[in-house]
């Protein structure tokens, strides 16, 4: 396996009883980039991250993280990787500083180094004014900054972030992503799971997961170019009626209302006249045009057929 990649998995599988949470996953995560896991809840994102950290044993398959054999060398990985859990996992009844000091001690930092590092992190993540405040009383964005500060305390080469922005307002999310890019600038590899399209768009590389399977992998640009479907924008006075008509039409993969317009994903651009005809036949007036592919189209194209087939 190549040492250029921070993470490589081969046929990674995890079953819980009869349920297969992760199904033969083959991933390659390049070093020094932000790699995104995009997928709905329950698609196996968290389970995969936990296996990559060595918290869960795989049922099948091989994992190499930072050239370590996981789970066998999971203890060695703990000194080189950080993990920011989905739910706040620090102590609510300790102050910001006490939490940081505790983690610093766990990593064996000297007294002087601890003080220095805690100062540094408080400064970088705007926690100075909150240092003596109990972690349980922080806001969502503040808690998340504290969690990031503890996750990077030991200066990990690789950072796992499991839906890090799920409890945070949009401004805090933007600021948070700035911090993440600052980390990649310093050479850290980041693996971020999310179900937000705008966050996925920021990643260097993306993996789209559904029901534990890898549906697509690549950069957002690459994925958009290879989408294999064409999005149409239908502007009409009767979007709901148009939606009913179009959903029944052959070649239409999905149809979603966005305000007063409809976003329709069709299998090829040749479908455009058929869509116009179908609307005209039902007496619906509207304007239909081909529009730019966005990541949501990629996500829908990659996952939609399977949702229908499986349910």
């Amino acid at each position, binding site marked *: 396996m190549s040492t250029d990649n921070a993470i490589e998995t081969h046929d990674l599988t995890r079953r819980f009883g009869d349920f297969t949470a992760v199904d033969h996953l083959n991933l390659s995560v390049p070093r020094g980039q932000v790699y995104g896991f995009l997928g709905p809840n329950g698609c196996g994102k968290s389970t995969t991250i*936990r296996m990559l*950290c*060595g*918290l*869960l*044993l795989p049922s099948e398959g091989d994992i190499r993280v930072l050239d370590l054999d996981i789970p066998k060398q999971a*203890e*060695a990985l*703990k*000194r080189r*990787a*950080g*993990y920011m*859990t989905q*739910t*706040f*996992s*620090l*102590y*609510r*009844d*300790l102050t910001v500083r*006490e939490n940081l000091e*505790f*983690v610093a*001690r*766990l*990593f*064996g930092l000297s007294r002087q180094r601890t003080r220095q590092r805690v100062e540094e992190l408080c400064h970088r993540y705007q926690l100075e004014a909150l240092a003596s405040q*109990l972690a349980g009383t922080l806001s969502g964005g503040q808690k998340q900054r504290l969690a990031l500060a*503890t996750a990077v305390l030991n200066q990990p080469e690789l950072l796992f972030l499991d839906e890090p922005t799920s409890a945070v307002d949009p401004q805090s999310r933007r600021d948070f992503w700035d911090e993440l890019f600052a980390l990649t600038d310093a050479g850290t590899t980041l693996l971020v799971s999310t179900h937000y399209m705008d966050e996925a768009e920021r990643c260097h590389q993306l993996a789209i997961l559904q029901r534990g399977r890898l549906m697509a992998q690549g950069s957002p640009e690459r994925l958009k170019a290879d989408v294999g479907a064409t999005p149409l924008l239908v502007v009409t006075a009767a979007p709901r009626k148009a939606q009913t008509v179009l959903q029944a039409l052959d070649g239409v993969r999905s149809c979603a209302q966005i305000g007063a317009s409809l976003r329709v994903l069709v299998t090829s651009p040749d479908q455009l006249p058929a869509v116009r005809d179908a609307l005209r036949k039902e007496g619906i007036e509207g304007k239909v045009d081909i529009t730019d592919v966005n990541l949501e189209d990629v996500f829908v194209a990659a996952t939609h057929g399977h949702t229908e087939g499986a349910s």
Partner: protein
Amino acid sequence: MSDRFSFARLLAVVIKELRQLRRDRLTYGMIIGIPTLQLILFGYAINMDVRHLPAAVVDQAQTQTSRQVVEELQQSRVFNFNRALHHAGTGEAMLRRGEVKAVLIIPADFERRLQGQRPPLQLIVDGSDQVVQQAARQIAQFPLRGTTTTASVEVLPYYNPHRNAPLNTVPGLIGVILTMTMVMFTAIALVREREQGNLEFLITTPLSSAELTLGKVLPFVAIGLIQTSLVLLLGKWIFQVPVRGSPLELYLAALLFIIASLALGIFISTLVRSQFQAIQAAIFTFLPQILLSGFMFPYEGMPKAAQWIAEVLPLTHFIRLARGIMLRGAGLDDLWPELLALAVFAAALLVVAVARVHKRLD
């Protein structure tokens, strides 16, 4: 767990635990509150100075002296002999119905007995009530004029022939309080890490399960010893309960018992998923200990099967140690089998418990 056991990480957990404890008012209060409250409740329930218990008198002698004795007993104000009966049987029936707490019987040959060896008076008391027994014992010391017998009143405790000495309670109470608080505190403390999601983060740090577990329970060892001291001091101060043997040996026994209880708490925490379940499980282990250890009911009076169960409960052994050392002034040279049993129990549970604390989520 490739890393060696690290005392620095252990210390990190201990410091964190103490900081959290300092902010946890409820636990803080329970550490002091439970022993104080229990000691006072149990202590006063036993030593309560009773007055005017309803009582009946069956005077079959009907002499000047017998009437005088009743009058004098009445003056002690412990019993109020306001029912004069003719038959002892009527008195027993009233006792059974709970209308009176005691029946004083003055036999027809009272005057003759005063000169002889047999106790001249008989006091039938409701033995199911510890307070009454205590009161009856005071009456038994009552000096009768012109008698040659040493025991002037023969006390017949009905319903509870095996009398509990009040002093027995305080040594046992140390064990009961330690069981209650140590098992529950540990179980809760460890489950809380999992329930609040802390464990998921801790697993990704170099902290080992042994360091985490020991770090979390070490502060409770200190707390357990503080509780022991508190009960001893209050027991001595309020109820004059002595420590006739070596205090050092008593603390050694307490230490072993604390470790055994903490190990039980750790073990429980590996079986349950929530703090609520932890409390339930702690109570589940607590009840048989309190009932079978000899704290409430004498060991000798229990059926064989119950005795076998009692032998594998750490509280049984601790109570024997505590009573032996505190009340009989016994030393570990007499009691070493009990100490050994406690040590074996503590070591075995600790090994099993730490082995069960997983460092993975599955």
